[in-house]
């Protein structure tokens, strides 16, 4: 178990380092950053001032190691536009993104687990096919478009929910539903497949032979085993959702981390952009590690 843990940790650190390098390279792609920050009307002297002020006159490798060294101590540099520390900016915006992500995940689990169980129990029937069809429809739904449709229907025509802002819990209902849509197909399929596999296994036959009730077999015996991969994938899905929330934050004007990144891209505020990429990647890596650990704890066969 300990060697399993250490190996996972080393891989996670290596991935984080690689992403750090990539994020740094990414923001240097445009060539001369000082020119793009200064804008089209800047004189040569302005550009030189900016180059000096932001330390862009140093060799690229020095800039890189400087960034990595500071990032390791939690210092992600200063934003060019907001004139504050990037870590403060991200910390301010993170609660919105996390609330959105967790709301989305909870809605997704709330919908997909019952749907998956029912589809598995009625495998091959019309209901099962309907559930699979819903999964396909969900997969094809462009999230930004669904968001706009919900805004028109529930925000404007019915007037039930606010269409933008972060004032109350009601603001997170529509974005949460839209975000959940991206995870529902995968989670439903996984629950269904897991339940079908579990229901065909020997211990379920034993449980049946003992004369246990159908509910007890389904919920106590089959679901517990089918739930292991679902819970693990749910953690990974949360990582994807946090990364993908940039679109939904933009549609619903939620000022989270994704919105911050989108603004910063438009303003050439590259310390923010590279920091957000890094932070989201680290969260994803941490969540996949949690998923792996959960799998290993719950299913000893996986501790290879």
């Amino acid at each position, binding site marked *: 178990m300990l060697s399993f843990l250490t190996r996972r940790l080393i891989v996670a650190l290596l991935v984080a380092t690689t992403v750090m390098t990539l994020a740094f390279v990414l923001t240097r792609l445009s060539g001369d950053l000082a020119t793009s920050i200064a804008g089209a009307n800047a004189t040569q002297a302005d550009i030189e001032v900016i180059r000096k002020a932001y330390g862009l006159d140093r060799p690229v490798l020095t800039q890189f190691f400087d960034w990595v060294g500071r990032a390791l101590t939690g210092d992600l540099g200063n934003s060019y536009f907001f004139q504050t520390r990037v870590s403060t900016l991200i910390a301010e915006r993170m609660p919105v993104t996390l609330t959105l992500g967790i709301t989305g995940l909870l809605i997704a689990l709330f919908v997909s687990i019952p749907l998956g169980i029912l589809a598995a129990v009625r495998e091959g029937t019309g209901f099962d*096919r309907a559930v699979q069809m819903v999964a396909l429809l969900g997969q094809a*739904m*462009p999230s930004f478009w669904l968001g*706009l449709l919900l805004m028109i229907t529930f925000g404007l025509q019915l007037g039930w929910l606010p269409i933008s802002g972060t004032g109350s819990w009601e603001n997170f209902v529509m974005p949460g539903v839209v975000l959940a849509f991206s995870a529902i197909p995968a989670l439903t399929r996984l629950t269904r497949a897991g339940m079908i596999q579990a229901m065909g296994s020997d211990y379920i036959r034993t449980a049946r032979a003992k004369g246990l009730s159908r509910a007890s077999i389904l919920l106590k015996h089959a679901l517990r085993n089918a739930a292991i991969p679902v819970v693990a994938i749910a953690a990974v899905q949360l990582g994807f959702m946090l990364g993908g929330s940039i679109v939904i934050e933009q549609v619903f004007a939620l000022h989270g981390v994704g919105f911050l990144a989108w603004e910063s891209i438009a303003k050439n505020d590259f310390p923010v952009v590279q920091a957000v990429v890094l932070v*989201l990647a680290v969260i994803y890596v941490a969540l996949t590690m949690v998923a792996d650990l959960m799998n290993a704890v719950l299913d000893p066969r996986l501790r290879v």
Partner: protein
Amino acid sequence: MSAAVTVNAGPKRGWKSLSTWIGAVIVGAAMICAIAAPLLVPHDPFAQDLAKRLQVPFWMEGTDPAHLLGTDQLGRDYLSRLIWGCRISMLIGVTVTVVSGLIGITIGVLGGFFGGRIDDAVLFAITTRLSIPVVLVALAVVGLLGTSMTLLVLTLGLLLWDRFAVVARSTTMQVRNLDFVAAAWCAGCSRFRVLSREVLPNIASHLVVVATLEIALAILLEATLSFLGLGVPPPLPSWGLMIAEAKDYMFFSPWVIVIPGVALFTLVLGINLLGDGLRDLFGARTDT
């Protein structure tokens, strides 16, 4: 158990083949629109007519028979822009998949075929790629380098190879140990020959299924990036861009975002239905 399978197989197959056919028809229609767009469009999709702004589509009152799906906020014919947008979606979907397929299949086959250290490196590359938020990085690249179709295709291609790599790797591992590969080694075939003549043809069907699903994903992502203003540059009528441009008018005329959205949804659904059908047909495994 076997009895239950036979009972279920009949209706399921019928339903499956129907959905595959629906998918095939949608994809076929989209391909015709994409290839013959210049011949099919009733009007010039770029021609503005400010006197005829926001004409309503045919199912509403006061429609102009010359513009079946109405006109947009600049008076451009919506049907023509929709057909032209299909060309852009398909073009981007296919080219992105070619780029990502080349990268992913190469990486995956190498890892699965050689194993050991090479495979460790491949697994590491896949893990790293999955930890990178695709939409954010694609937005950042396009935002820093400027919007163009070529840049968009390359960026998405460089980001979307993971599923190809995962499937190519696992299927290559299975094929590598089969008897006919051993026979080819014994016959003195070179590594390259074994790879290209024995391994690749036997994993191709799995890769075709991945390719269809990846085309759908690339089309969705292109629309998303265009919607956020960092995808296909205007005035090109990408469906995502059409939705973004029409957004200001959606509360008064919802059809302006409904029409391109339905087109996008239908195309992606059609490609996914076709992909699922092919998966069953080939008995391919594409779970990642």
